[in-house]
């Protein structure tokens, strides 16, 4: 017999809500920056992205206070995203290189490294100030 199990399903779906989450706006605005300005001014509404769960590994965060530059993090980092200068005791974290495995945050003895929930990190310059943490 000729069976098309999809037909009743699509007809039903026609009256259901679409599955798409229209982030950041229902239709792509002409200019994202202008749209964001409007949102800030309260003239437009931003459709929020879905919530991320507890324990999500987003963009890496670094708190230089109390860091001893022990370089354990650099030793386990698979992406060469952490640079340690042991003489000056400084650590530079390149978030643009980071692959968000979270290995450094586990190995850090002082908990100076942590994963944030931020995931909208697209940028045209991966060495910009937001993407390089010192």
């Amino acid at each position, binding site marked *: 017999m000729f069976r*098309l199990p*999809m*037909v009743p399903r*699509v*007809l039903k*779906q*026609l009256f*259901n809500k*679409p*599955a*798409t989450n*229209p982030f950041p706006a*229902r*239709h792509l605005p002409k200019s994202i920056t202008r749209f964001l300005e409007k949102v800030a001014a309260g003239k437009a509404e931003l459709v929020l992205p879905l919530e991320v769960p507890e324990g999500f590994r987003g963009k890496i965060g670094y708190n230089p206070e109390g860091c001893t530059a022990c370089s354990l993090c650099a030793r386990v980092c698979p992406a060469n995203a952490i640079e340690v200068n042991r003489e000056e005791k400084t650590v530079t974290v390149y978030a643009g290189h980071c692959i968000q495995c979270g290995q450094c945050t586990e190995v850090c003895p002082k908990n100076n490294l942590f994963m944030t929930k931020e995931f909208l990190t697209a940028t045209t310059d991966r060495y910009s100030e937001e993407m390089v943490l010192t």
Partner: protein
Amino acid sequence: MTEIFLKLIIGVVSMTALGIVGGFIIQGVDRKLAALMQARIGPLLRQPWWDFLKLMRKENVVPEHAVPWVYNAAPIMAFASVITIFLYLPFAGFNPLMEGYGDLILIMYLLAMPALAMVFGGFASGSPYATIGAQREMVTMIGYELPLGAIVISFAWKMAQSGLAHPFSLKTIAANPIWNLVGPFGIIGFILLLLAMIVVTPAELSKGPFDAPEAKSELAEGLLVEYSGRNLAMFYLALGAKMIAMLGLTVALFFPYTISQYFQVDTTVKIVIEVLFYIIKIFLVMFVSVTLMRVSMARFRITQIVEIYWKLGGTMTFLGLFLIMLDGKL
């Protein structure tokens, strides 16, 4: 003679406008409905218009191996032939512009013209994908012409048998709704023909599941693969207008009813009601024969397309014809 020329000029201008605008609207609605059925939000209704504008601004690339004049002429030929169909189609209860000059057979051939233009364009573009696509388009045409021809013959036979003059003329068919002319067997017969028409429509419009000539995932848009810029925009227009023409033909053949006679209002209001009713009819036919078909099935193989049209379509239409004849003899 001058009257015909005047009619022709006005007709061509107004029908071109109607074809373009109607094509955009109908494609927009089709895309939106398909998106909703697939649980997507889908584009705006005016998206086809934006697509067209964007294409017009893009560079018109002619491939190195192409035959330029055929390659460039194909889209214009496709569009022009679709507009010609419009001159012979009755719309919203109005008689066709060129009434008395063309008939169903002519429309059948004109409907084949855009497809042929695409075949020429495909062969002329000199890409292996386009060549395979063009071959497939020809095979598909051979496939669906059989049931389509059978449908036309059934209508003409019934009209002639009912003793009407000009049995092949669409004006006659539109003026005499077919369902009023036949008995129970005939109704079953015409339902079969209607089903065959619904199956033929997607192939005629190169839509899924019969879109083997353009198959995105196999041939990367097949015979349109090399087209870009203005040429592609022209094809886009032609396909949109052809959708209206094909659906208009289905409506004219099977649902030529009017409703304005039931309202006691002015002529202008009557026209408005009539046009609205016609639009609703067109959209209903589109939903069943284009949108629903393309979202609920996987693409057929080219051999299967021919098999379906010849075996299934052929059987259905000939059975329909037989029932109609049986009905006529009773």
